[in-house]
């Protein structure tokens, strides 16, 4: 389901003093994989990210589709839903963290599930950020900046 668009022209000329991810000339150049089974939410996420200036976005409709994409392409960030049919977000997170080739990739969970045990399970599995739907573009931007601008180990 990868359908990465051409990078937005302004992204490459964006003068961003923030630390970019590995291989990205600016924060706006990071490659993001959105994993979500609900097409509506994939569209919402893509539009929000585009509005924020992120243009290098690919999509997968569940964890089992995302994993080969992660192995075959370079991504700087995974944004995933929790509940999906074949492989859910938590399982995907655990697989990523257990894989030496992938474990450095920051993972953000975006879900309608605000249950304590789910957040704890995600935190224990090594999630980098957890956003509860509904959310705004500002929340998303804030979390992405937090991930890439405050932790140099990801760069």
């Amino acid at each position, binding site marked *: 389901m990868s359908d990465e668009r051409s990078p937005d022209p302004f992204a490459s000329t964006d003068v961003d003093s923030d630390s970019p991810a590995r291989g990205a000339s600016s924060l706006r150049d990071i490659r993001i994989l959105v994993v979500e089974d609900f*097409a*509506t939410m994939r569209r919402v996420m893509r539009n929000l990210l585009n509005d924020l200036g992120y243009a290098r976005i690919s999509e997968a409709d569940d964890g089992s589709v995302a994993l080969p994409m992660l192995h075959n392409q370079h991504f700087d960030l995974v944004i995933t839903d929790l509940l999906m*049919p074949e492989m859910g977000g938590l399982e995907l997170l655990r697989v990523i963290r257990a894989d030496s080739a992938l474990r450095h990739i*920051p993972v953000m969970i975006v879900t309608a599930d*605000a249950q*304590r045990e789910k957040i704890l399970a995600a935190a224990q599995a*090594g999630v980098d950020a957890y956003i509860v739907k509904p959310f705004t573009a500002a929340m998303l931007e804030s979390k992405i900046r937090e991930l890439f601008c405050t932790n140099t180990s990801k760069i």
Partner: protein
Amino acid sequence: MDANEHEGILAIFLAEAEDIVKGLFAQLEELQYGYDGQRILDDIHRGFHTLYGGAAVLELVELTECARLSERVMDRLRTRRIALSPSLVSLIVGATSAIEVMLSRLINHQTVNRIPDELRGRLLKAAGQAIDESKAKLEGSAPRSGDALLDVFFDAAAGGRSSAVNARPAATSGRALQSDAKLNTLLDSLYSPATSVVDKKLKSAPAAARVSEPQISDLVSELAWVRNRLMGFRAESEGDKLNKALAYLDLVTQDMERWLQRHQSGGQ
């Protein structure tokens, strides 16, 4: 998201949501026949969860409420905190029908009404969220989950809830949580302030007016619904379906009998 974008995404959502509802009805039919395998319970829960998440993002308040309550009921059911019963299946079918009506009205650009109080009360009860009106007003019009602590944490972090479905900031970053000490720090930050806010709210709220037990009229409505299904199957002349429907009728009747016995022994 501008108005055109919103309209486009809404159209996609409505089409997807209609498909989900169709799937839910098919899955609920299996529940009606007494099959409650984990897979189907998980699938039904995920259907409501998806509807809830999409509706919340698109700020469809009435749909958000109904889908969220249904999702909470299904979560309790799939984790075996409550048992499957004919009246519960009937309740979930009723909630799904209400969602179907809401979607139909949205498609036709009509005003969407809030779910009826009676259905809302039964969903709240099944979701383990019997709350009084004053607390509901205090916390906004959306139903609160069983994990109110987290919700209140979000409110506190945002400096107050601006609406029923908005202004819930991201919960936390977790990369820094991989040691036990850091995890404990996270938990402290998540729950300590929340607990105090909850306590404060509960202390300021009047005594709870609990949602009442199911009324006999609800059960009779349920019985009538089963009867109507039977009438439909009779026209199809399919013995197997008729037998299953009759078995369900038997379960509902037994449920009614137990309910009556409980209330009679309680001095009613």
